[in-house]
Structure formats: C-alpha cells, structure tokens
C-alpha cells in the first residue's frame, strides 16, 4: 500500500546516478538568472548548496539563525570525513564504503542513495583540498587517513580535531565568494518559521528577523531546507543550544512527510552529566576510542568506592578492570559502532558499575596508549581534546582516565525525500542532517559530514535543475498574495499566543521535562509500555506548556526566550511523533532498540520480516493522529545479515 | 600609493622605518657621547663634536634626521588618534590582560615624554652650539684649535652643576629604553620580518638594544654626578 514514489532510477546500482544525471533536465544559464532559490541553513549542507547554486547562476537567498553562517553546528564535528579514496591501499572502494554504510545503518537505508553517497565521496575531498582546507598530511605531503568506529579500513580524512570546522569554513569561504559576487544574499540572525505553498508548490518562507522581531516574507521558485537535526528534543545533547527541528516540523505540517523520527544516534563518548544545572553535553571525539580503552571495575565494591570518591581510577589494578567491550566484542573491541558501545555502557552502569557520583559514567583510559606510544604521540593526536576535557572537568586525562557516558548526538530520521532530495512537497528540498537521508537506522562515524557536502556540492545542484527546468516560465514570486498573508498571519498568531500565555514557568522548565521523558522512554532502550507512557506524558506536558509558559521580553526585539518557546513547541510534537514511530517499529535496529526484540544474549535483534521499511508520517491536523506510509526498502545488491561485531 | 599611506599597515610601515632609523641614529649619538666619559680633559669629545658639526655627510643627514623625527612624531599622533576612535566606549573593568605599565600599551605616552626630553635636550646643547652660542663654548681648553667650540665644557658644566638635569637625562635614557624595548621588535614585526622562531630572538634583542641605549645614555650624567 505504498503510495510513495522514491524515484529511484532504473539500472544497475553502480550506474543509477550517472544514468539519472544524463536523463534529467538542465536549466540554461540565461534562465538560471531568472530563478530564485531559498536555502535555509548554512551548515555543511546549506553553505555548500548555496555556494554551488550561486556559482551556477541562480539567485540564492541563504538564512541562518546564528550571527554568521560560519557558526552552524557542523562546526562542532571533530573526528573526520569519510571518502572512498583508497589512498591507503587497504582495499577500500566505493562499493566497500557503500556496503559499510548500509550495514552500519542496519539495512534500513535506500541502496541507491547510499551508493550515490559513496560514489561522490572522493570528489568532496578534492573539492575541499582545492578550497584550502588544511587536512592532515603525511611527511611525504600526501593526505593522511585514520580509521573510525565500526569499519576495517582507513578512509577518514581529518583536520586535527576540528574537521567539521575546517570543512564548514571551506564551504563558508565558497559562500562568501558568492556573496561578494552578488549571487547569494545572506540573512544571518533570521529564523525560518514557516514555508509557504502556492498551488501545492513551495514558493517561499516566512522568517523572523531575530534582531528586531520583524516578520518578513521571501519568495522563490524552490526552497531548500538544510536546517540540521532535531536531537535537542532530549534537552541535553551534543547539539548546539539553538539546533532545532522547527523548519522541518513546519514543513511537515504543510504536508512534507517526516521519516523515521525514532532513529536517533546516541554517542558513546560524551562527558557525563553533572548535577542538574547542566545545559549541554560535550562530545569527546570518537577517534579517542582508537587509542583509549573503555573499562569499569570488575568488583562492585570498587565501583561503589569510586562513586563515593574514596578511591580513584588509578587505584584499581589492571586485573580488577573489566574491559567490557574487548570482552564482549573481541574482534572490534573498543571500536564497535556507536549504538553497541552506548548500550554496553548503559548496561554496565545499570548493573551497578558506574564510576561517577551519579553512577552514570565509564572510564576511557589512555594509560596503555601512552605506555605504548609515548605521551608525545598522544598529545599530538588528541592534545586539544584533552585540553577541553581538562577545562570542563578539572581532571588531567594524561594521568587519570576520562569519564564518558552516552548522549544524544545525531538524528538519522528527518524530512522524507526522494532520490532527488525533494520532499513530498514539490519544490521543497531537504539536505544534510535535516533529511532522513542515507544512514538508515544508525550512522557511521564521519559519514554525516560526507553526506552534508555530497548533498550540497554534488547532488542537489543537479537534481534541483530538473525541477526548476519546469519552472522557467514562472515569474518572480510575488509575496503579496493571500497564501503569504495567511502564512504570516499564522506565524504572528502563534508567536503572540506564546507570548501572551504569561504563565509561571520559563521555557527551559518544560524542555528539561520533555528531555527527561524522552531519555527515559524514547532513549537508548525502548519498550511498548514506556513508549505509550511517553505519548501520554508528552501530551500532558504539551497542555501544560501551552497554558503555563512564561515568555518575557518584547515581541519586537531580540528575544531568545521567544525563540526557545517556538522551538520547544515543535519539539513537543516531534517527541510525540518519535514515540509513535518507535512504537510502530517493533524490532531493534541500529539506534532503535526495542527490549521486545533481542537475541538470547541480549543483543539487538533486527526483524526483516516486519522492519524493512522507512516510515513516512503524514500530518493530519493539529491533535489528530498522523498517518504512516511505508516506503518498502528493497535490497538487490546486498544480503541482509545480522550485524555482528563479536 | 596614497591608499598605502592611509592603510593601517601602510601607516605603521612609516613608523617602523623611521623608528629603526632613529635607533641607528641613537647608536651613533651614544657612541659619540660616551667619549665624554673616556677623557676628562674633553679633547676627544671636542674633536668628535667638531667633526660632526663640519662633516658634509653628517650635514646631509641632519635634515633627514629631523624629517625622520617629524614623520615619526606626526604619524604617531595620527595612528594613536585613529586607534582611539576605533573604541568609542571603553570597559568599566578596565583592560587587564596586559599590565597598565606595559610599554606596548604606552608607546604614545613614552614617546611624548621622550619628545619633551628632546626639546629640553635641544635647548641645552644643540641650540646653543648652532645658533645662540654660549660663553662656555668659547672657554679655552686643552687641544682646542681655532674656531673649535669647547662643547665638552658646555656639557660638563650642565651635568656637574645642575643635578636636576642629571635626573632629567637619566629619566630620558630610561624612557627611550622603554620605548625601544617594544619598538625594536615591533618594527620588525611591522615590516613582516618576523616569524614564530624569530619572535623570541627579536624580543630578546629588543631588550638588549633598549638596555644598551637606555643604560648608555643614563650612564653619562651618572658619571658626572658621581665623579665630580
């Protein structure tokens, strides 16, 4: 009963993309000049797309909520970016990267998309090098690689511990060049609050100028959302404070399907939560697991004494340490994929072996690596990460093991898109983390940067041309139409409503509560009862929020609380949909772990009989049950096997 | 080129060149002045002073030197003013990263005090030697030929009989030294002749040069003060 057309081209896997490119339409340069494109978001996906579209000759308007496009949260990615370059001669290939990604995603991604991602990955590296991205180099001057969680080849390119920053600055520089050339107009400190449809096609957006509260309208022939992930549903996550799901959610309410919301990734190496005043979690790069060994005490008494602060990690002898990842997964050891490492940490802590005061932390120890490689090598590899860790925790990781605990990190789910990256609304595109993308139920390390740039540099600029070729007769979009009036009225109405509740509790009060519900019931491990409870509790919280939130300040001025309130209103709805999606998917796969679906030794058990689909939720109206469509996933090139990292 | 003159880096470029030029001048000047302390009869110094007053090369250099000073001073005012304009409102808690007395923060004040000193200095000696004359200059002395001034007498008299001036001159030496302790390496930085390795070396050299010049000039009045 799938009424979903993912527009996957015919032909053998390896030829789909080139055949598709050959088949789709192209807009002439003269016509490109007449076409306007809106790009919301200037992370890796948005900046690369806006720059590339500007270079092609379209008129681009780009938006971000930060004060500069350079600050999008892509900047925070530390570890690296994958590409099937096979520079290391370790038998890497496009196929292997594709296969690793599909397998890592627990066979819940589209073959064709994932293959295309692997196929364009080498171009990304070339592009970034040409832009002057200072990737790490070998002594001979060639590009250096490292291996990254969950794979057996070295294909990760990196720029110290700041890969995301450097790639984003590369894309930002390309964007700047287009701004200078006049082909891109940049609107920083502008938040998109709605997408406007005219005759069923996306024709513009409504934004709020965050510096003065002014509501503005922008029209275009196509709209691209590159607004990042919704991980902040959990309140505490590794996302930026402003990361949000609002753009995607408003699009959903206008008819864009939302796909696989229950797939979120929990990252195993974050600095543990501390106290109740914490505002955000800091990721320690996954690359640390290359040299650090994860352990908890073997004896419960030791763990208890650690929690009370009576002893410290260095007091525990090697033979009393339980290197549980090496024990449980001898072949991958400390390098098992994120979901596996995260659940294993939770399992140990739930069993009473947690090592910090809250009992929610495990050790990541560099003692052994320092013994083996020397302090200098470790310093060179992770110096800045160690420094950051010490600043935050006041503990020196050269002499004492780090404490880590899993935290929400990435959203595999997102706006549903077809092979062209177009959502179910014609003319509305979603790229980067914002779409439900190519990672299935779990994303491999260093693949999000790859996907963002693949979408923005090499895929969208082609596929959007196919759509726009049909729009060349459409004149400039007039924003003085009933559709824009209506959309603006809704936006203003909602903001005024939030502002006028004048209740007792600040936004964060509700956000923390939502985070708690999500972490408890829709977090690392889920079951039917908990999910149902989550849906109920979220509904209650939503009611309370809409009757008791207090938004201070002024409507027509900078007002961070008003921004937060709007975002939280959407997170409440996203949380609800996540729980529904998780409830629907009665199997364990990737980041989604259902307690009802496990093997005898407690590992996640995928169920391909019922689970081989991507969900695509359709909005039915406020407070109405949404409808789920199924996009059946067909695997013609890989054989579905249970993931095993033993 | 006019855009270069107005550009922030262009303006600094002239400060740097004139500053380095002034440092070279100071070395020459100091070498000469130290002769005051080698020969209490004054013969050596008077000869040197005469040479300086009559040598054609020095004659050519004099207006250039004056120009160097003038450019350095005018530019310093211009730069300082522009830089102050860049921060219309300051900090309540102050600016605490560099100590308030760091020479780098006080170049204009140090330079200004050096300028005041310079004016006093010019009136003490240069004006008298060149223009107004002074009875002391005509005082007979050992080895003085016809028409050669007894510059030594003029200098020695000031330093021996007016301790206030000794203090002013010692201060002058210290101020110039402080100015140069930042100015020397800064000048190399400004013209781009610096990198992370040379940074330490230049800063060391700056302090050495500053010490030599500062201490050298301060030594002369001290010598007279103590010896006579």
């Amino acid at each position, binding site marked *: 009963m799938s009424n979903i057309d993912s527009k996957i081209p015919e032909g053998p896997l390896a030829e789909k993309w080139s055949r598709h490119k050959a088949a789709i339409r192209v807009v002439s340069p003269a016509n490109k000049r007449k076409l306007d494109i809106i790009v919301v978001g200037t992370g890796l996906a948005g900046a690369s797309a806006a720059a590339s579209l500007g270079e092609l000759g379209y008129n681009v308007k780009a938006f971000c909520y930060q004060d500069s496009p350079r600050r999008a949260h892509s900047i925070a990615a530390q570890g690296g970016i994958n590409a099937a370059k096979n520079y290391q001669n370790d038998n890497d290939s496009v196929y292997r990267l594709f296969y690793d990604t599909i397998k890592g995603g627990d066979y819940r991604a589209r073959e064709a998309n994932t293959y295309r991602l692997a196929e364009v990955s080498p171009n990304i590296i070339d592009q970034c090098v040409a832009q002057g991205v200072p990737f790490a180099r070998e002594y001979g001057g060639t590009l250096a690689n490292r291996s990254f969680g969950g794979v057996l080849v070295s294909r990760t390119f990196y720029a110290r511990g700041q890969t995301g920053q450097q790639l984003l600055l590369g894309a930002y520089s390309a964007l700047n060049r287009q701004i200078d050339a006049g082909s891109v107009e940049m609107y920083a400190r502008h938040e998109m609050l709605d997408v406007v449809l005219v005759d069923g096609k996306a024709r513009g957006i409504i934004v709020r100028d965050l510096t003065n509260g002014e509501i503005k309208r922008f029209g275009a022939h196509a709209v691209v959302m590159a607004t990042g992930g919704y991980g902040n549903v959990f309140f505490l996550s590794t996302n930026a404070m402003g990361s949000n799901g609002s753009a995607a959610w408003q699009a959903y309410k206008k008819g864009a399907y939302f796909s696989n919301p229950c797939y979120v990734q929990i990252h195993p190496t974050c600095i543990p939560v501390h106290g109740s005043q914490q*505002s955000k979690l800091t990721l320690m790069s996954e690359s640390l697991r290359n040299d650090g060994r994860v352990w908890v005490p073997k004896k419960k008494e030791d763990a208890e004494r650690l929690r009370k602060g009576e002893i410290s990690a260095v007091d525990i002898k090697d033979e009393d340490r339980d290197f549980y990842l090496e024990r449980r997964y001898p072949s991958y050891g400390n390098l098992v994929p994120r979901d596996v490492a995260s659940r294993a940490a939770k399992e140990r802590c739930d069993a009473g072996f947690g090592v910090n005061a809250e009992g929610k932390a495990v050790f990541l120890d560099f003692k052994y690596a320092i013994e083996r490689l020397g302090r200098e090598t470790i310093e060179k590899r992770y110096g800045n990460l160690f420094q950051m860790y010490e600043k935050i925790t006041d503990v020196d990781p050269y002499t004492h093991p780090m404490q880590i605990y899993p935290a929400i990190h990435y959203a595999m789910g997102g706006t549903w898109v077809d092979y062209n990256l177009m959502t179910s609304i014609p003319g509305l595109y979603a790229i980067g983390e914002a779409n439900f993308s190519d990672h299935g139920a779990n994303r491999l390390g260093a693949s999000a940067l790859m996907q963002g740039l693949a979408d923005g540099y090499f895929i969208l600029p082609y596929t959007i041309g196919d759509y726009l070729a049909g729009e060349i007769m459409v004149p400039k979009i007039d924003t003085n139409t009933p559709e824009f009036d209506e959309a603006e009225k809704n936006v203003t109405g909602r903001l005024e409503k939030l502002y006028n509740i004048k209740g007792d509790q600040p936004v964060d009060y509700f956000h923390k509560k939502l985070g708690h519900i999500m972490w408890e019931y829709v977090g690392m491990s889920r079951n039917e009862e908990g999910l149902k409870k989550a849906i109920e509790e979220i509904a209650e919280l939503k009611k309370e929020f809409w009757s008791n939130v207090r938004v201070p300040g002024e409507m027509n001025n900078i007002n961070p609380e008003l921004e937060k309130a709007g975002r939280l209103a959407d997170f409440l709805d996203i949380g609800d949909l996540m729980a529904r999606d998780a409830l629907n998917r009665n199997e364990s796969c990737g980041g989604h772990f259902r307690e009802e679906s496990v093997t005898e030794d407690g590992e996640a058990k995928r169920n391909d009989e019922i689970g081989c689909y991507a969900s695509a939720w359709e909005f039915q109206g406020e407070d109405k049950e949404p409808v789920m469509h199924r996009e059946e996933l067909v695997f013609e090139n890989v054989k579905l096997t249970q993931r095993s990292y033993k | 080129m006019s855009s270069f003159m107005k550009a922030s880096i262009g303006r600094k470029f002239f400060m740097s060149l004139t500053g380095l030029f002034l440092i070279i001048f100071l070395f020459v000047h100091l070498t000469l002045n130290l002769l005051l302390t080698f020969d209490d009869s004054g013969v050596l110094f008077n000869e040197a002073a005469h040479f300086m007053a009559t040598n054609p090369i020095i004659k050519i250099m004099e207006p250039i030197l004056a120009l160097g000073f003038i450019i350095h001073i005018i530019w310093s005012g211009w730069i300082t003013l522009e830089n102050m304009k860049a921060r219309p409102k300051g900090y309540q808690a102050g600016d605490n990263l560099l100590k308030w007395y760091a020479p780098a923060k006080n170049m204009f004040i140090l330079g200004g005090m050096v300028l005041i000193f310079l004016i006093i200095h010019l009136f003490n000696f240069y004006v008298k030697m060149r223009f107004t004359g002074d009875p002391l200059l005509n005082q007979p002395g050992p080895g003085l030929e016809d028409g050669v001034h007894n510059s030594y007498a003029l200098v020695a008299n000031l330093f021996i009989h007016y301790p206030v001036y000794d203090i002013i001159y010692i201060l002058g030496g210290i101020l110039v030294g402080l100015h140069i302790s930042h100015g020397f390496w800064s000048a190399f930085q400004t013209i781009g002749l610096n990198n992370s390795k040379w940074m330490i070396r230049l800063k060391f050299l700056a302090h050495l040069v500053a010490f030599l010049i500062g201490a050298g000039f301060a030594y002369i009045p001290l010598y007279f003060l103590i010896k006579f």
Partner: protein
Amino acid sequence: MADKILKKIYVKVWRQNNPSEKGRFETYEVENVSQGSSFLEMIDILNDQLIREGKDPIAFDHDCREGICGMCSMYINGHAHGPDSEITTCQLHMRRFEDGETITVEPWRAGAFPVIKDLIVDRTAFDKIQQAGGYVSVNTGGVPDGNTIPISQVDAEEAMDAAACIGCGACVATCKNSSAMLFVAAKVSQFAKLPQGKVEAKRRAKAMVAKMDELGFGGCTNTGACELACPKNISISHIARLNREYLKAKFSD
C-alpha cells in the same frame, strides 16, 4: 571531584535594551552555584531567576557551548572570555571564581561591533572582511585530485594553526585599538601557507586589509594582547606574515 558550591556571587552586567539606548550596569545576586557549572550555566540560572521575577533576562550570544562556534562573547572582569586562558566564555567554569565575588560582565567593545542588546554585539564586520577575499576562487567540480599537490606536513600544520580561528572577536575586544589584525592575519596566513591559496595571495591581502580598515577597526600596534586573549592560541607571528604579504602585494603594484 565533588565541586564546591558558591553560596552567593554578584553579577554586575551591562544592560542595554537596544542599539540606541545608552545602557547601564545592573548588579544581580546569584545563589548556590556549583563550581562545576560553566559560566554560561550560571547566567542561565540568573536568567531563570530574572524570568521568574518578571524581569527581562540578559541577552547573550552562545550556541555550541563547546568552544568552537565562536558565538559566545563576554568580557569578564577585564578579560575577553574571562580569566582563564585558551578557552571561550562557554568553556569557562565557575571554579575560577570565589564565594562573594562581584563579577563584571561587559559586551565586546569596539566601534566596529555595535551592541545590539545587553551582551550581544553585531560582528557582521568579520563576515564582510571574509567576503572581501577570504577564499580560494574555485567553483564546485573540476578540481584536481586531492593528492595532486603534495603539501609538507609542516606547512599543513602551520596553515591549520591559523585556520583554527573561530571568529569570536576576542582579539578585537581585547586590543586597545580594537584592531582585527589577528583575525585577518589568521585567514591570510592560512592561505599563504598553502599552494592553493598562493595564486590569489596579493589580491586577498590587499582586499581584506582594505575592508578591515574601511569597517572602522583600529590599526595593529603589536601589543600582543590579542594572542593572549585568543581562545585558539593564534600567534601574532601570523600578523607578521600578513604584514609581509600585504607589503609584498603593495610594492609589486
């Protein structure tokens, strides 16, 4: 690792409702702050308190809260990003403060960074400088393989040192001349170290410096305060390189 609790601290903070208002300092009391909290978490607590009291919370810029986006920008007790070195405001922790202390918090002060509200300033001038030439002019596609041009590890590392700049503006905020030289030098130096950047080196240095001057930043007088304030340890040796690049470009005109 049990962190001490600060029973009471006083936060003296700049309040200014909009760009045209004159602005003033207000002092607030905050109680029971764990020393393990970050500085911004302390401000969160204060804001929560202000909201509950029906007052307008303090507006401040922040986003990643892990020292990389460059958005946070507070001048704390006379130090850009506070009294700790090599960190941003969001990485500053309350361990650095004592019970009963009055902490003065001000926005970045520079003519080129006008205050928008409270502690939020407008740093678009930085973007404008980058737009003037902080890029390599290559289009998407049609570029050679990444390994075609070998780059020595030393050069790559040095370029990376410069490229680490997060555009926070602490250098401008700290410099007594509100000079943006360290920021501009970081970009120019990164490209000057890489073969990809050398092609346009002259145009870039001239354009970026001209833009910087035009936007009202002061000139560099080599005080070195910027590198001490810089959370990413960008060295002023990059300024020497910028001077060199600029002079080379100008003299070859």
